[in-house]
């Protein structure tokens, strides 16, 4: 709460100075550059294609959602959408669940080899996973996981773990040690301490790592392109390539498809930004 209040105060103060005004102008200009094409997509997705060709930049005369129906049903967007959602959510849940347990141990215990283990996890951040596609493909093939959603989920989860462990273990480390000790004296064993005392306290950090994993996975084109063959398993980014070919001239449907792809991310940010800010301001501090 206090952090929010200070940032508000800081912002209003900076507006009064010339430098502050310049920054405001710059930021608003950037916002327009970003938002304008997006608005164009929104408006045009609601207009028939014929109208778009006649006048590309105009407000829709009436709200017409036909192109959404077309995209959803005829262009198999429904299939892609549910695939994307399932694969992304499953990957994020799997990676986060694994990371939070690993991070707890790495952040709060010292044991022989703990620092080596921590470095091992972090080294994943240095690896460009796409360069490892060939061995990865062969590995999945031997496991019989090529062209399965499970295979893709496993790969995705693995890519998300290093970053999540990094963030979460730092978060665990800064929780006061007295909490663990108090719980231990209260009669809690290690599992109870993790599950009922420490885990609830890192929830804000969980939201952060979940969002940071979700976005690149949702947008990822490369891994599903290589690892998935059958179109009924495709995710949105891959599905869109076929869709672009098919509906090259049907701009309205095209825009609707793009919007369907983007909306979950927008929704996620609307929800999660709040979560992340709450997490940052609430903190744990001296309680």
């Amino acid at each position: 709460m206090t952090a929010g209040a200070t940032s508000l105060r800081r912002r209003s103060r900076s507006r009064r100075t010339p430098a502050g005004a310049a920054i405001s102008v710059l930021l608003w200009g950037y916002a327009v550059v970003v938002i304008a094409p997006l608005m164009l997509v929104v408006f045009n997705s609601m207009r028939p294609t014929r109208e778009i060709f006649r006048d590309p930049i105009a407000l829709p005369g009436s709200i017409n959602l036909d192109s959404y129906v077309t995209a959803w049903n005829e262009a198999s967007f429904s299939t892609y959408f549910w695939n994307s959602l399932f694969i992304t959510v499953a990957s994020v849940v799997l990676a986060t669940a694994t990371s939070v347990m690993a991070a707890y141990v790495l952040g709060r215990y010292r044991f022989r080899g703990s620092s080596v283990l921590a470095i091992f996890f972090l080294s994943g951040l240095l690896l460009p996973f796409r360069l490892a596609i060939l061995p990865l493909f062969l590995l999945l093939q031997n496991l019989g996981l090529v062209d399965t959603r499970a295979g893709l989920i496993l790969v995705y989860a693995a890519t998300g773990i290093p970053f999540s462990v990094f963030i979460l273990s730092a978060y665990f480390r800064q929780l006061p040690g007295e909490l663990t000790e108090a719980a231990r004296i209260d009669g809690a064993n290690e599992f109870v301490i993790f599950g009922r005392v420490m885990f609830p306290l890192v929830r804000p950090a969980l939201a952060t790592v979940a969002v940071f994993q979700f976005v690149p996975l949702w947008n990822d084109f490369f891994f599903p392109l290589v690892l998935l063959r059958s179109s009924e398993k495709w995710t949105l980014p891959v599905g869109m390539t076929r869709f672009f070919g098919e509906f090259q001239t049907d701009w309205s449907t095209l825009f609707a498809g793009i919007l369907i792809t983007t909306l979950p991310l927008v929704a996620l940010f609307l929800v999660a930004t709040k979560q992340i800010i709450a997490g940052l301001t609430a903190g744990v501090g001296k309680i």
Partner: protein
Amino acid sequence: MAKITLDDIGKIYPDGTRAVGHVNLDIQDGEFLVLVGPSGCGKSTILRMIAGLEEITEGKLYIGDQLVNDVPPKDRDIAMVFQNYALYPHMSVFDNMAFGLKLRKMPKEEIKRRVLEAAETLEITEFLDRKPKALSGGQRQRVAMGRAIVREPKAFLMDEPLSNLDAKLRVQMRTELSLLHKRLGTTTVYVTHDQVEAMTLGHRVAVLRAVSPQRPYNLQQVAPPTELFNEPVNLFVAGFIGSPAMNMVYGHLEADGDTVWAVFAGNRVKVDPVALERHPGIDERMGDRLVLGIRPGNFEAASHVAGADPDKQIEVNVEVTEMLGNETFVHFLLDEEPVMTPDIQELLGAAAEEEAVMGHKTQFTARVSPDVPVTAGDRLALVIDTAKMHFFDPTHGVRIGATPPPGMEAMVQS
């Protein structure tokens, strides 16, 4: 409730440094024992070893009659109050207090009964639904206390529980703690660096000191507060207990027939026989260089004592006065190099060097009546209650005639 016995307890960290050595304590059933000492004296480590949060590397620890060296904290049946309260931030006050009971699978009604009862005692009933962050420091402190009380444990362990409160609240909570202990009668071990807390709360107070390679012992003296104050076993205890601290100066005693005179910094005062009786063996130290100790409270302005004995007076040049309303502190200097034994150096810490810079002057503080008209620069006659004078050996700092603290016997004999 139970007694707690520390039998030659010690702690050596894996890197070989010793934090605690040879601590022997018999804490009686229902006793309020305070561990006090400057930072680094090992008091918290001892408490954490009793709690089971720190491994005991030497000696034996008994709670009741059970040897608990290898018993995990949850099975020791003790409750601890932490300096930072360590409340679970995501739980309500009720859940914070009930957590330990829930984990012990206590029936719901019993949990509720105990929590409500404790909340009533501590006057926090109205906050039971709140989260810790919506509470003030004092309220959090009470919740932490409540969490300990509901467990109805064999003993309470408290690690500087009042040090995060502001001064006024601390005094209030100190009184409440005292009352609470009277009501519950639970054995309590209380750690603090504040000698006022130690003196006001403890049935007995254990004064601790950091170990050194030559002296791997922490305990200096374990005694009721008045005994610590009146008969400190060495200069360390004498300097630590009491505020303002005891005045110390080098000097010697002279026997002149039946009368004994204390000679220090050009002054000569008659020593009351009572003081000599309190220091067995002092007769053999006549003429030896000693450290003389006089508490600030054992001075008074000669003008304010009817029939003041002229043989027990000294005249001083007042340097600074502090009027506190119901007493006045008078600071003056004596023409003698300051007492600087290892004890004193340890107590002063970084301030020791400053003291050394002062050179050949010893600082003294006297407490006089508030209506004594005195200002800086005045010449003032002070009368000393010489029955309450203290005499210490200047080499090892042990009080003349006292049983030396553990680990110092050899030094005293040599």
